[in-house]
Protein backbone atom coordinates (compact mmCIF):
# COMPACT_ATOMS: atom_id res chain seq x y z
CA UNK A 1 0.00 0.00 0.00
CA UNK A 2 2.68 2.48 1.04
CA UNK A 3 4.62 1.52 -2.06
CA UNK A 4 1.82 2.88 -4.20
CA UNK A 5 1.49 6.17 -2.36
CA UNK A 6 4.36 7.99 -4.08
CA UNK A 7 3.30 7.18 -7.69
CA UNK A 8 -0.32 7.94 -6.80
CA UNK A 9 0.72 11.27 -5.38
CA UNK A 10 2.71 12.02 -8.52
CA UNK A 11 -0.23 11.20 -10.77
CA UNK A 12 -2.54 13.36 -8.67
CA UNK A 13 -0.06 16.22 -8.80
CA UNK A 14 0.31 15.82 -12.57
CA UNK A 15 -3.46 15.93 -13.08
CA UNK A 16 -4.02 18.88 -10.76
CA UNK A 17 -3.60 21.69 -13.35
CA UNK A 18 -6.45 20.15 -15.35
CA UNK A 19 -8.81 20.95 -12.47
CA UNK A 20 -7.10 23.87 -10.81
CA UNK A 21 -7.22 26.89 -13.07
CA UNK A 22 -6.64 29.62 -10.51
CA UNK A 23 -3.24 31.19 -11.34
CA UNK A 24 -2.72 32.45 -7.79
CA UNK A 25 -3.04 28.95 -6.34
CA UNK A 26 -0.86 27.57 -9.12
CA UNK A 27 1.72 30.21 -8.27
CA UNK A 28 1.52 29.19 -4.61
CA UNK A 29 2.00 25.54 -5.62
CA UNK A 30 5.02 26.37 -7.79
CA UNK A 31 6.72 28.29 -4.98
CA UNK A 32 5.78 25.54 -2.53
CA UNK A 33 7.21 22.97 -4.93
CA UNK A 34 10.49 24.84 -5.21
CA UNK A 35 10.84 25.05 -1.45
CA UNK A 36 9.84 21.42 -1.12
CA UNK A 37 12.79 20.50 -3.34
CA UNK A 38 14.99 22.47 -0.95
CA UNK A 39 13.39 20.67 1.98
CA UNK A 40 14.03 17.27 0.37
CA UNK A 41 17.68 18.17 -0.16
CA UNK A 42 17.99 19.49 3.39
CA UNK A 43 16.46 16.24 4.62
CA UNK A 44 19.44 14.39 3.21
CA UNK A 45 21.65 16.19 5.69
CA UNK A 46 19.32 16.93 8.54
CA UNK A 47 17.21 13.81 8.39
CA UNK A 48 19.45 11.03 7.16
CA UNK A 49 22.84 12.07 8.55
CA UNK A 50 21.52 14.05 11.51
CA UNK A 51 23.57 17.17 10.71
CA UNK A 52 21.55 20.31 11.37
CA UNK A 53 22.57 22.70 8.61
CA UNK A 54 21.10 26.16 9.03
CA UNK A 55 22.91 27.59 6.02
CA UNK A 56 20.97 25.75 3.38
CA UNK A 57 19.59 28.95 1.88
CA UNK A 58 23.14 29.78 0.77
CA UNK A 59 23.02 27.00 -1.85
CA UNK A 60 19.55 28.02 -2.93
CA UNK A 61 20.74 31.59 -3.39
CA UNK A 62 24.01 30.69 -5.09
CA UNK A 63 22.05 28.51 -7.50
CA UNK A 64 19.71 31.40 -8.24
CA UNK A 65 22.57 33.83 -8.85
CA UNK A 66 24.66 31.42 -10.95
CA UNK A 67 21.70 30.61 -13.15
CA UNK A 68 20.56 34.22 -13.50
CA UNK A 69 24.06 35.48 -14.29
CA UNK A 70 24.59 32.71 -16.83
CA UNK A 71 21.45 33.81 -18.62
CA UNK A 72 22.04 37.55 -18.32
CA UNK A 73 25.81 37.71 -18.71
CA UNK A 74 28.21 39.86 -16.70
CA UNK A 75 31.33 41.96 -16.94
CA UNK A 76 33.41 41.94 -13.83
CA UNK A 77 36.87 43.07 -12.83
CA UNK A 78 39.07 40.74 -10.79
CA UNK A 79 42.29 41.38 -8.87
CA UNK A 80 45.55 41.72 -10.86
CA UNK A 81 43.80 43.65 -13.62
CA UNK A 82 41.92 40.63 -14.92
CA UNK A 83 38.53 41.11 -16.45
CA UNK A 84 35.87 38.55 -17.15
CA UNK A 85 33.19 39.37 -19.66
CA UNK A 86 30.44 36.99 -20.56
CA UNK A 87 27.63 37.66 -22.98
CA UNK A 88 24.92 35.55 -21.48
CA UNK A 89 23.42 32.34 -22.75
CA UNK A 90 20.76 29.71 -22.40
CA UNK A 91 18.91 29.40 -19.11
CA UNK A 92 19.22 25.63 -19.30
CA UNK A 93 23.01 26.00 -19.24
CA UNK A 94 22.54 28.16 -16.16
CA UNK A 95 20.43 25.45 -14.58
CA UNK A 96 23.15 22.85 -15.12
CA UNK A 97 25.90 25.23 -14.04
CA UNK A 98 23.92 26.07 -10.91
CA UNK A 99 23.86 22.38 -10.02
CA UNK A 100 27.57 21.94 -10.66
CA UNK A 101 28.71 25.07 -8.86
CA UNK A 102 26.50 24.63 -5.81
CA UNK A 103 27.58 21.01 -5.68
CA UNK A 104 31.22 22.10 -5.62
CA UNK A 105 30.48 24.74 -3.00
CA UNK A 106 28.67 22.13 -0.94
CA UNK A 107 31.70 19.86 -1.23
CA UNK A 108 34.10 22.57 -0.05
CA UNK A 109 31.86 23.72 2.77
CA UNK A 110 31.33 20.12 3.78
CA UNK A 111 35.08 19.50 3.89
CA UNK A 112 35.52 22.51 6.12
CA UNK A 113 32.51 22.33 8.39
CA UNK A 114 32.27 18.61 9.11
CA UNK A 115 35.30 19.04 11.32
CA UNK A 116 32.76 20.11 13.93
CA UNK A 117 29.46 18.65 15.08
CA UNK A 118 26.30 19.62 16.89
CA UNK A 119 25.80 23.20 17.90
CA UNK A 120 29.12 24.25 16.39
CA UNK A 121 28.08 22.87 13.02
CA UNK A 122 24.82 24.81 13.30
CA UNK A 123 26.67 28.06 13.81
CA UNK A 124 29.26 27.47 11.07
CA UNK A 125 26.51 26.88 8.56
CA UNK A 126 24.58 30.00 9.65
CA UNK A 127 27.80 32.00 9.36
CA UNK A 128 28.52 30.67 5.89
CA UNK A 129 25.06 31.69 4.63
CA UNK A 130 25.40 35.13 6.15
CA UNK A 131 28.83 35.70 4.57
CA UNK A 132 27.50 34.67 1.17
CA UNK A 133 24.56 37.07 1.58
CA UNK A 134 26.90 39.92 2.43
CA UNK A 135 29.06 39.13 -0.58
CA UNK A 136 25.99 39.19 -2.84
CA UNK A 137 25.00 42.48 -1.26
CA UNK A 138 28.39 44.16 -1.63
CA UNK A 139 29.92 42.74 -4.79
CA UNK A 140 27.87 45.16 -6.82
CA UNK A 141 29.82 44.79 -10.04
CA UNK A 142 28.88 41.15 -10.37
CA UNK A 143 25.56 40.80 -8.59
CA UNK A 144 24.27 44.39 -8.89
CA UNK A 145 24.10 44.15 -5.09
CA UNK A 146 20.86 45.47 -3.71
CA UNK A 147 19.92 46.88 -7.11
CA UNK A 148 18.77 43.33 -7.96
CA UNK A 149 19.19 41.27 -11.10
CA UNK A 150 16.11 41.97 -13.18
CA UNK A 151 14.64 40.76 -16.46
CA UNK A 152 15.87 37.23 -15.91
CA UNK A 153 14.49 35.18 -18.84
CA UNK A 154 12.12 32.29 -18.30
CA UNK A 155 13.55 28.78 -18.41
CA UNK A 156 14.11 27.48 -21.95
CA UNK A 157 14.22 23.78 -22.75
CA UNK A 158 15.95 22.58 -25.91
CA UNK A 159 13.74 20.02 -27.66
CA UNK A 160 15.74 17.76 -29.98
CA UNK A 161 14.60 18.38 -33.55
CA UNK A 162 11.90 20.85 -32.50
CA UNK A 163 13.88 23.90 -31.48
CA UNK A 164 13.33 25.47 -28.10
CA UNK A 165 10.48 25.70 -25.67
CA UNK A 166 10.34 28.74 -23.40
CA UNK A 167 8.37 28.07 -20.24
CA UNK A 168 6.33 31.21 -19.79
CA UNK A 169 3.00 30.04 -18.44
CA UNK A 170 2.17 28.89 -14.93
CA UNK A 171 1.22 25.40 -16.04
CA UNK A 172 4.51 24.88 -17.89
CA UNK A 173 6.48 26.04 -14.87
CA UNK A 174 4.35 23.87 -12.62
CA UNK A 175 5.29 20.78 -14.62
CA UNK A 176 8.94 21.78 -14.69
CA UNK A 177 9.00 22.07 -10.90
CA UNK A 178 7.08 18.81 -10.59
CA UNK A 179 9.57 16.96 -12.78
CA UNK A 180 12.57 18.32 -10.89
CA UNK A 181 10.85 17.50 -7.59
CA UNK A 182 10.12 13.94 -8.73
CA UNK A 183 13.73 13.51 -9.85
CA UNK A 184 14.98 14.85 -6.52
CA UNK A 185 12.70 12.41 -4.74
CA UNK A 186 14.12 9.53 -6.76
CA UNK A 187 17.70 10.66 -6.16
CA UNK A 188 17.16 10.87 -2.40
CA UNK A 189 15.24 7.58 -2.41
CA UNK A 190 17.93 5.80 -4.39
CA UNK A 191 20.71 7.15 -2.19
CA UNK A 192 18.97 6.20 0.99
CA UNK A 193 18.31 2.66 -0.18
CA UNK A 194 21.92 2.16 -1.26
CA UNK A 195 24.93 1.11 0.77
CA UNK A 196 25.78 4.76 1.03
CA UNK A 197 22.42 5.35 2.69
CA UNK A 198 23.17 2.74 5.31
CA UNK A 199 26.49 4.44 6.00
CA UNK A 200 24.70 7.77 6.47
CA UNK A 201 22.20 6.30 8.86
CA UNK A 202 24.89 4.44 10.70
CA UNK A 203 26.66 7.73 11.33
CA UNK A 204 23.46 9.27 12.57
CA UNK A 205 22.58 6.47 14.97
CA UNK A 206 26.01 5.95 16.45
CA UNK A 207 28.99 7.71 15.02
CA UNK A 208 31.69 5.88 16.97
CA UNK A 209 30.18 2.49 16.12
CA UNK A 210 29.98 3.42 12.44
CA UNK A 211 33.59 4.57 12.51
CA UNK A 212 34.72 1.30 14.06
CA UNK A 213 32.94 -0.53 11.24
CA UNK A 214 35.14 1.28 8.75
CA UNK A 215 32.75 3.98 7.57
CA UNK A 216 34.61 7.13 6.60
CA UNK A 217 32.56 9.80 8.37
CA UNK A 218 33.89 12.93 6.71
CA UNK A 219 33.74 11.35 3.26
CA UNK A 220 30.17 10.13 3.72
CA UNK A 221 28.98 13.43 5.12
CA UNK A 222 30.76 15.42 2.43
CA UNK A 223 29.14 13.40 -0.34
CA UNK A 224 25.74 13.94 1.27
CA UNK A 225 26.44 17.67 1.57
CA UNK A 226 27.51 17.86 -2.08
CA UNK A 227 24.36 16.20 -3.40
CA UNK A 228 22.17 18.15 -1.02
CA UNK A 229 23.72 21.46 -2.08
CA UNK A 230 23.39 20.62 -5.78
CA UNK A 231 19.67 19.92 -5.35
CA UNK A 232 19.15 23.19 -3.50
CA UNK A 233 21.07 24.93 -6.30
CA UNK A 234 18.71 23.42 -8.87
CA UNK A 235 15.76 24.75 -6.86
CA UNK A 236 17.40 28.18 -6.74
CA UNK A 237 17.77 28.17 -10.51
CA UNK A 238 14.08 27.28 -10.96
CA UNK A 239 13.19 30.09 -8.59
CA UNK A 240 15.30 32.69 -10.45
CA UNK A 241 13.79 31.88 -13.84
CA UNK A 242 10.28 31.76 -12.45
CA UNK A 243 10.24 34.92 -10.28
CA UNK A 244 12.54 36.66 -12.79
CA UNK A 245 14.15 39.02 -10.31
CA UNK A 246 16.58 38.17 -7.54
CA UNK A 247 18.35 40.32 -4.99
CA UNK A 248 20.31 39.46 -1.84
CA UNK A 249 16.99 38.77 -0.14
CA UNK A 250 17.12 35.26 -1.64
CA UNK A 251 19.55 34.57 1.21
CA UNK A 252 17.00 35.51 3.89
CA UNK A 253 17.43 33.40 7.01
CA UNK A 254 13.67 32.98 7.12
CA UNK A 255 13.87 30.83 3.97
CA UNK A 256 16.18 28.43 5.78
CA UNK A 257 13.75 28.42 8.67
CA UNK A 258 10.93 27.56 6.26
CA UNK A 259 12.93 24.62 4.89
CA UNK A 260 13.81 23.31 8.34
CA UNK A 261 10.19 23.59 9.43
CA UNK A 262 9.09 21.61 6.37
CA UNK A 263 11.57 18.83 7.10
CA UNK A 264 11.17 18.52 10.85
CA UNK A 265 7.41 18.97 10.99
CA UNK A 266 6.93 16.59 8.07
CA UNK A 267 9.22 13.99 9.54
CA UNK A 268 12.97 14.10 9.18
CA UNK A 269 14.67 11.01 7.88
CA UNK A 270 11.58 9.89 5.97
CA UNK A 271 11.18 10.24 2.23
CA UNK A 272 7.65 11.57 2.39
CA UNK A 273 8.25 13.92 5.33
CA UNK A 274 9.56 16.95 3.41
CA UNK A 275 6.74 16.53 0.88
CA UNK A 276 4.03 16.54 3.52
CA UNK A 277 5.71 19.28 5.55
CA UNK A 278 6.37 21.25 2.38
CA UNK A 279 2.76 21.14 1.28
CA UNK A 280 1.41 22.07 4.71
CA UNK A 281 3.82 24.88 5.53
CA UNK A 282 4.00 26.09 1.94
CA UNK A 283 0.25 26.43 1.63
CA UNK A 284 -0.55 27.39 5.22
CA UNK A 285 0.19 31.10 4.63
CA UNK A 286 -2.09 30.96 1.58
CA UNK A 287 -4.87 29.46 3.66
CA UNK A 288 -4.41 31.91 6.52
CA UNK A 289 -4.21 35.01 4.33
CA UNK A 290 -7.94 35.58 3.75
CA UNK A 291 -9.07 34.77 7.30
CA UNK A 292 -7.07 37.00 9.63
CA UNK A 293 -4.87 40.06 10.15
CA UNK A 294 -1.27 39.81 8.89
CA UNK A 295 0.29 39.75 12.37
CA UNK A 296 -2.18 37.10 13.48
CA UNK A 297 -1.22 34.92 10.50
CA UNK A 298 2.34 34.76 11.78
CA UNK A 299 1.20 34.00 15.31
CA UNK A 300 -1.00 31.13 14.10
CA UNK A 301 1.85 29.88 11.90
CA UNK A 302 4.14 29.75 14.94
CA UNK A 303 1.47 28.16 17.11
CA UNK A 304 0.71 25.42 14.56
CA UNK A 305 4.43 24.68 14.30
CA UNK A 306 4.71 24.29 18.07
CA UNK A 307 1.51 22.24 18.25
CA UNK A 308 2.72 19.77 15.60
CA UNK A 309 6.02 19.31 17.38
CA UNK A 310 4.32 18.75 20.72
CA UNK A 311 1.84 16.21 19.45
CA UNK A 312 4.18 14.54 16.96
CA UNK A 313 7.79 15.19 18.00
CA UNK A 314 9.08 12.93 15.22
CA UNK A 315 6.99 14.71 12.60
CA UNK A 316 3.75 14.04 10.80
CA UNK A 317 4.75 11.14 8.55
CA UNK A 318 6.24 8.90 11.29
CA UNK A 319 3.22 9.67 13.48
CA UNK A 320 0.82 8.65 10.72
CA UNK A 321 2.82 5.48 10.13
CA UNK A 322 2.62 4.54 13.77
CA UNK A 323 -1.10 5.18 13.61
CA UNK A 324 -1.70 3.03 10.54
CA UNK A 325 0.47 0.26 11.92
CA UNK A 326 -1.57 0.21 15.09
CA UNK A 327 -4.73 -0.14 13.02
CA UNK A 328 -3.28 -2.88 10.82
CA UNK A 329 -1.23 -5.05 13.18
CA UNK A 330 -0.39 -7.54 10.41
CA UNK A 331 1.90 -5.10 8.65
CA UNK A 332 5.54 -5.92 9.03
CA UNK A 333 6.99 -4.20 12.05
CA UNK A 334 9.93 -1.95 11.45
CA UNK A 335 11.33 1.37 12.28
CA UNK A 336 9.45 4.30 10.71
CA UNK A 337 12.73 5.28 9.16
CA UNK A 338 12.86 2.16 7.01
CA UNK A 339 9.17 2.06 6.32
CA UNK A 340 9.35 5.54 4.90
CA UNK A 341 12.62 4.99 3.16
CA UNK A 342 11.24 2.81 0.38
CA UNK A 343 10.87 4.87 -2.76
Amino acid at each position, binding site marked *: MTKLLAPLFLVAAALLPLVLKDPYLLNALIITGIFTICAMSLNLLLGFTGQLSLGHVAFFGIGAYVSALTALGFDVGLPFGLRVTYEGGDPIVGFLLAIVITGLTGFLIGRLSFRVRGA*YFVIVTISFAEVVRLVALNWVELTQGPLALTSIPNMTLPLPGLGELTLRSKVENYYLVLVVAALSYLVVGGLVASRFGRAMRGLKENESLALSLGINATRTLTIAATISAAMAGAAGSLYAHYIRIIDPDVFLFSYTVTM*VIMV*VAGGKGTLAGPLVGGLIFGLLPVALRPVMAPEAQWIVYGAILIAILFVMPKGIVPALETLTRRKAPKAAPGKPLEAGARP
Partner: protein
Amino acid sequence: MDQFLQHIVNASVLGGTYALLGIGLTLIFGIMNVVNFTHGAIYTFGAYAMYLAAVALGLNFFVALPVAVVAGLIMGAIIEFALLRPLRRSDIDTTMLVMIGTGIILQSGTLWIFGGVAKAVPTPFPTEPLVIGPVSLSYVRLFVFFAALALIVLTYFTINGTKLGRAMRATFQDHDTAALMGVNVSLIYTATFAIGSALAAAAGALLGPVYVVFPQMGDLAAVKAFAIVILGGLGSISGATIGGFILAFAEEIGAGYISSGYRDAMGFLIIIAVLLVKPTGLFARAERIG
Protein backbone atom coordinates in the same frame (compact mmCIF):
# COMPACT_ATOMS: atom_id res chain seq x y z
CA MET B 1 45.59 58.28 15.09
CA ASP B 2 42.72 60.29 16.56
CA GLN B 3 40.32 58.28 14.46
CA PHE B 4 41.94 55.06 15.67
CA LEU B 5 41.57 56.04 19.33
CA GLN B 6 37.90 56.80 18.72
CA HIS B 7 37.43 53.38 17.11
CA ILE B 8 39.04 51.72 20.14
CA VAL B 9 36.75 53.53 22.56
CA ASN B 10 33.66 52.76 20.46
CA ALA B 11 34.57 49.08 20.28
CA SER B 12 35.19 48.82 24.03
CA VAL B 13 31.78 50.27 24.84
CA LEU B 14 30.03 48.10 22.28
CA GLY B 15 31.89 45.01 23.48
CA GLY B 16 30.36 45.25 26.94
CA THR B 17 26.83 44.89 25.62
CA TYR B 18 27.81 42.21 23.12
CA ALA B 19 29.28 40.24 26.01
CA LEU B 20 26.05 40.58 27.97
CA LEU B 21 24.08 39.25 25.01
CA GLY B 22 26.48 36.36 24.52
CA ILE B 23 26.58 35.24 28.14
CA GLY B 24 22.84 34.69 28.36
CA LEU B 25 22.90 32.55 25.24
CA THR B 26 26.01 30.59 26.13
CA LEU B 27 24.53 29.55 29.48
CA ILE B 28 21.40 28.15 27.83
CA PHE B 29 23.33 26.65 24.96
CA GLY B 30 25.96 25.07 27.18
CA ILE B 31 23.84 23.76 30.03
CA MET B 32 20.61 22.86 28.26
CA ASN B 33 21.88 22.12 24.73
CA VAL B 34 19.08 24.29 23.35
CA VAL B 35 19.68 26.50 20.30
CA ASN B 36 17.68 29.34 21.73
CA PHE B 37 15.99 31.21 18.92
CA THR B 38 13.94 33.25 21.39
CA HIS B 39 17.06 35.09 22.54
CA GLY B 40 16.52 37.94 20.08
CA ALA B 41 12.82 38.10 20.89
CA ILE B 42 13.56 38.28 24.62
CA TYR B 43 16.06 41.05 23.94
CA THR B 44 13.26 42.93 22.16
CA PHE B 45 10.90 42.05 25.01
CA GLY B 46 13.31 43.59 27.52
CA ALA B 47 13.50 46.78 25.47
CA TYR B 48 9.70 47.06 25.28
CA ALA B 49 9.41 46.29 29.01
CA MET B 50 11.80 49.18 29.60
CA TYR B 51 9.72 51.39 27.31
CA LEU B 52 6.49 50.47 29.12
CA ALA B 53 8.00 50.97 32.56
CA ALA B 54 9.77 54.23 31.76
CA VAL B 55 7.27 55.87 29.41
CA ALA B 56 3.83 54.34 29.99
CA LEU B 57 4.18 53.86 33.76
CA GLY B 58 6.44 56.89 34.09
CA LEU B 59 8.91 55.14 36.38
CA ASN B 60 12.35 56.57 37.05
CA PHE B 61 14.97 55.32 34.54
CA PHE B 62 16.95 53.53 37.23
CA VAL B 63 13.83 51.86 38.63
CA ALA B 64 12.52 50.86 35.22
CA LEU B 65 15.74 49.03 34.42
CA PRO B 66 15.48 46.32 37.10
CA VAL B 67 11.74 46.03 36.36
CA ALA B 68 12.56 45.12 32.77
CA VAL B 69 15.21 42.63 33.85
CA VAL B 70 12.78 40.90 36.22
CA ALA B 71 10.17 40.82 33.45
CA GLY B 72 12.71 38.99 31.28
CA LEU B 73 13.45 36.57 34.13
CA ILE B 74 9.76 35.72 34.49
CA MET B 75 9.25 35.44 30.75
CA GLY B 76 12.18 33.03 30.49
CA ALA B 77 10.86 30.90 33.36
CA ILE B 78 7.43 30.71 31.71
CA ILE B 79 8.86 29.67 28.33
CA GLU B 80 11.04 27.00 29.91
CA PHE B 81 8.23 25.67 32.06
CA ALA B 82 5.56 25.61 29.36
CA LEU B 83 7.54 24.69 26.26
CA LEU B 84 10.93 23.24 27.03
CA ARG B 85 10.20 21.12 30.10
CA PRO B 86 7.77 18.81 28.24
CA LEU B 87 10.38 18.38 25.50
CA ARG B 88 13.27 17.47 27.78
CA ARG B 89 13.80 14.13 26.03
CA SER B 90 13.53 15.55 22.50
CA ASP B 91 16.48 16.17 20.24
CA ILE B 92 18.15 19.48 19.52
CA ASP B 93 16.21 20.10 16.26
CA THR B 94 12.80 19.77 17.86
CA THR B 95 13.51 22.18 20.69
CA MET B 96 15.14 24.54 18.24
CA LEU B 97 12.03 24.61 16.05
CA VAL B 98 9.80 25.14 19.07
CA MET B 99 12.03 28.06 19.98
CA ILE B 100 11.74 29.39 16.42
CA GLY B 101 7.94 29.14 16.66
CA THR B 102 7.99 30.93 20.00
CA GLY B 103 10.24 33.62 18.57
CA ILE B 104 7.84 34.16 15.64
CA ILE B 105 4.90 34.45 18.05
CA LEU B 106 6.71 36.88 20.36
CA GLN B 107 7.89 39.10 17.51
CA SER B 108 4.54 39.18 15.69
CA GLY B 109 2.75 39.76 18.98
CA THR B 110 4.99 42.75 19.66
CA LEU B 111 4.25 44.13 16.20
CA TRP B 112 0.54 43.60 16.74
CA ILE B 113 0.45 45.29 20.12
CA PHE B 114 2.87 48.16 19.58
CA GLY B 115 2.88 48.62 15.79
CA GLY B 116 5.99 48.88 13.68
CA VAL B 117 6.89 52.50 14.45
CA ALA B 118 10.03 52.70 16.56
CA LYS B 119 9.75 53.99 20.12
CA ALA B 120 12.33 56.07 21.95
CA VAL B 121 13.10 55.69 25.64
CA PRO B 122 14.23 58.96 27.24
CA THR B 123 17.33 58.89 29.42
CA PRO B 124 18.31 61.17 32.28
CA PHE B 125 21.78 61.67 30.83
CA PRO B 126 22.98 64.85 29.10
CA THR B 127 23.17 64.76 25.29
CA GLU B 128 26.48 66.61 25.22
CA PRO B 129 29.24 63.99 25.09
CA LEU B 130 32.14 63.54 27.43
CA VAL B 131 35.20 64.76 25.54
CA ILE B 132 38.69 63.62 26.48
CA GLY B 133 41.27 64.85 24.02
CA PRO B 134 40.39 63.56 20.54
CA VAL B 135 37.87 61.05 21.85
CA SER B 136 34.25 61.68 22.70
CA LEU B 137 31.70 59.41 24.28
CA SER B 138 28.14 59.86 25.43
CA TYR B 139 27.30 59.49 29.11
CA VAL B 140 24.48 57.05 28.46
CA ARG B 141 26.86 54.67 26.69
CA LEU B 142 29.31 54.95 29.52
CA PHE B 143 26.54 54.04 31.94
CA VAL B 144 25.46 51.11 29.77
CA PHE B 145 29.03 49.90 29.63
CA PHE B 146 29.43 49.87 33.40
CA ALA B 147 25.97 48.42 33.99
CA ALA B 148 26.81 45.60 31.57
CA LEU B 149 30.11 44.95 33.34
CA ALA B 150 28.30 44.87 36.69
CA LEU B 151 25.80 42.33 35.38
CA ILE B 152 28.59 40.20 33.93
CA VAL B 153 30.41 40.16 37.26
CA LEU B 154 27.17 39.36 39.05
CA THR B 155 26.49 36.41 36.73
CA TYR B 156 30.04 35.19 37.10
CA PHE B 157 29.69 35.29 40.87
CA THR B 158 26.33 33.48 40.74
CA ILE B 159 27.78 30.66 38.67
CA ASN B 160 31.04 30.29 40.54
CA GLY B 161 30.20 31.29 44.08
CA THR B 162 26.69 30.13 44.94
CA LYS B 163 24.98 26.83 45.59
CA LEU B 164 22.76 27.36 42.55
CA GLY B 165 25.82 28.00 40.44
CA ARG B 166 27.49 24.82 41.68
CA ALA B 167 24.41 22.83 40.72
CA MET B 168 24.37 24.51 37.31
CA ARG B 169 27.99 23.64 36.71
CA ALA B 170 27.39 20.06 37.79
CA THR B 171 24.46 19.83 35.36
CA PHE B 172 26.63 21.22 32.58
CA GLN B 173 29.27 18.52 33.17
CA ASP B 174 26.82 15.63 33.21
CA HIS B 175 23.16 16.02 33.96
CA ASP B 176 22.55 12.35 34.77
CA THR B 177 25.26 12.28 37.40
CA ALA B 178 24.05 15.61 38.73
CA ALA B 179 20.56 14.16 39.08
CA LEU B 180 21.96 11.15 40.96
CA MET B 181 23.82 13.48 43.29
CA GLY B 182 20.51 15.00 44.30
CA VAL B 183 20.50 18.05 42.05
CA ASN B 184 16.99 19.01 40.96
CA VAL B 185 17.84 19.14 37.25
CA SER B 186 14.41 20.45 36.22
CA LEU B 187 14.77 23.38 38.56
CA ILE B 188 18.29 24.04 37.31
CA TYR B 189 17.04 24.11 33.72
CA THR B 190 14.30 26.57 34.57
CA ALA B 191 16.76 28.72 36.50
CA THR B 192 19.27 28.62 33.65
CA PHE B 193 16.75 29.64 31.04
CA ALA B 194 15.34 32.36 33.29
CA ILE B 195 18.80 33.80 34.03
CA GLY B 196 19.81 33.64 30.38
CA SER B 197 16.59 35.40 29.38
CA ALA B 198 17.02 38.02 32.11
CA LEU B 199 20.45 38.84 30.70
CA ALA B 200 19.01 39.17 27.17
CA ALA B 201 16.23 41.39 28.52
CA ALA B 202 18.83 43.43 30.39
CA ALA B 203 20.76 43.94 27.17
CA GLY B 204 17.56 45.09 25.48
CA ALA B 205 16.60 47.37 28.34
CA LEU B 206 20.07 48.94 28.35
CA LEU B 207 20.38 49.33 24.60
CA GLY B 208 16.76 50.37 23.97
CA PRO B 209 17.45 53.86 25.32
CA VAL B 210 20.76 54.07 23.40
CA TYR B 211 19.17 53.03 20.10
CA VAL B 212 15.42 52.89 19.42
CA VAL B 213 12.91 50.16 20.27
CA PHE B 214 11.17 48.30 17.44
CA PRO B 215 9.83 44.77 16.85
CA GLN B 216 12.67 43.48 14.65
CA MET B 217 15.50 44.84 16.79
CA GLY B 218 16.27 41.37 18.11
CA ASP B 219 17.06 39.76 14.75
CA LEU B 220 20.53 41.17 14.32
CA ALA B 221 21.23 40.98 18.06
CA ALA B 222 20.47 37.25 18.06
CA VAL B 223 22.78 36.55 15.14
CA LYS B 224 25.58 38.43 16.87
CA ALA B 225 24.94 36.57 20.11
CA PHE B 226 25.39 33.27 18.27
CA ALA B 227 28.65 34.51 16.83
CA ILE B 228 29.91 35.51 20.26
CA VAL B 229 28.97 32.18 21.80
CA ILE B 230 30.82 30.21 19.19
CA LEU B 231 33.87 32.43 19.52
CA GLY B 232 33.96 31.90 23.25
CA GLY B 233 32.92 28.26 23.31
CA LEU B 234 29.71 26.80 24.67
CA GLY B 235 28.92 27.44 28.29
CA SER B 236 31.93 29.60 29.00
CA ILE B 237 31.14 32.95 30.60
CA SER B 238 34.64 34.33 30.35
CA GLY B 239 34.78 33.05 26.78
CA ALA B 240 31.58 34.87 25.86
CA THR B 241 32.88 38.04 27.50
CA ILE B 242 36.10 37.97 25.53
CA GLY B 243 34.17 36.88 22.42
CA GLY B 244 31.92 39.92 22.76
CA PHE B 245 34.90 42.25 22.81
CA ILE B 246 36.63 40.49 19.91
CA LEU B 247 33.50 40.81 17.79
CA ALA B 248 33.10 44.49 18.63
CA PHE B 249 36.73 45.23 17.77
CA ALA B 250 36.57 43.27 14.53
CA GLU B 251 33.44 45.10 13.41
CA GLU B 252 34.70 48.51 14.37
CA ILE B 253 38.14 48.13 12.82
CA GLY B 254 36.69 46.33 9.80
CA ALA B 255 34.15 49.06 9.15
CA GLY B 256 36.67 51.82 9.86
CA TYR B 257 39.52 50.58 7.71
CA ILE B 258 38.28 47.89 5.32
CA SER B 259 34.70 48.43 4.15
CA SER B 260 31.61 49.47 6.01
CA GLY B 261 29.49 47.22 3.78
CA TYR B 262 31.21 44.20 5.27
CA ARG B 263 30.90 45.40 8.86
CA ASP B 264 28.42 42.73 9.82
CA ALA B 265 30.37 40.07 7.92
CA MET B 266 33.42 40.48 10.17
CA GLY B 267 31.94 38.44 12.98
CA PHE B 268 31.07 35.57 10.69
CA LEU B 269 34.43 35.58 8.98
CA ILE B 270 36.09 35.38 12.38
CA ILE B 271 33.87 32.47 13.33
CA ILE B 272 34.74 30.55 10.21
CA ALA B 273 38.42 31.28 10.72
CA VAL B 274 38.32 30.27 14.38
CA LEU B 275 36.47 27.06 13.70
CA LEU B 276 38.97 26.10 11.03
CA VAL B 277 41.85 26.56 13.43
CA LYS B 278 40.30 25.52 16.72
CA PRO B 279 36.91 23.94 16.08
CA THR B 280 35.58 24.11 19.63
CA GLY B 281 35.94 27.85 20.00
CA LEU B 282 38.77 29.88 21.39
CA PHE B 283 38.20 29.25 25.06
CA ALA B 284 36.26 26.03 25.30
CA ARG B 285 37.22 22.90 27.09
CA ALA B 286 38.43 20.24 24.73
CA GLU B 287 35.22 18.24 24.57
CA ARG B 288 33.16 17.83 21.47
CA ILE B 289 29.46 18.45 21.83
CA GLY B 290 26.75 16.79 19.83
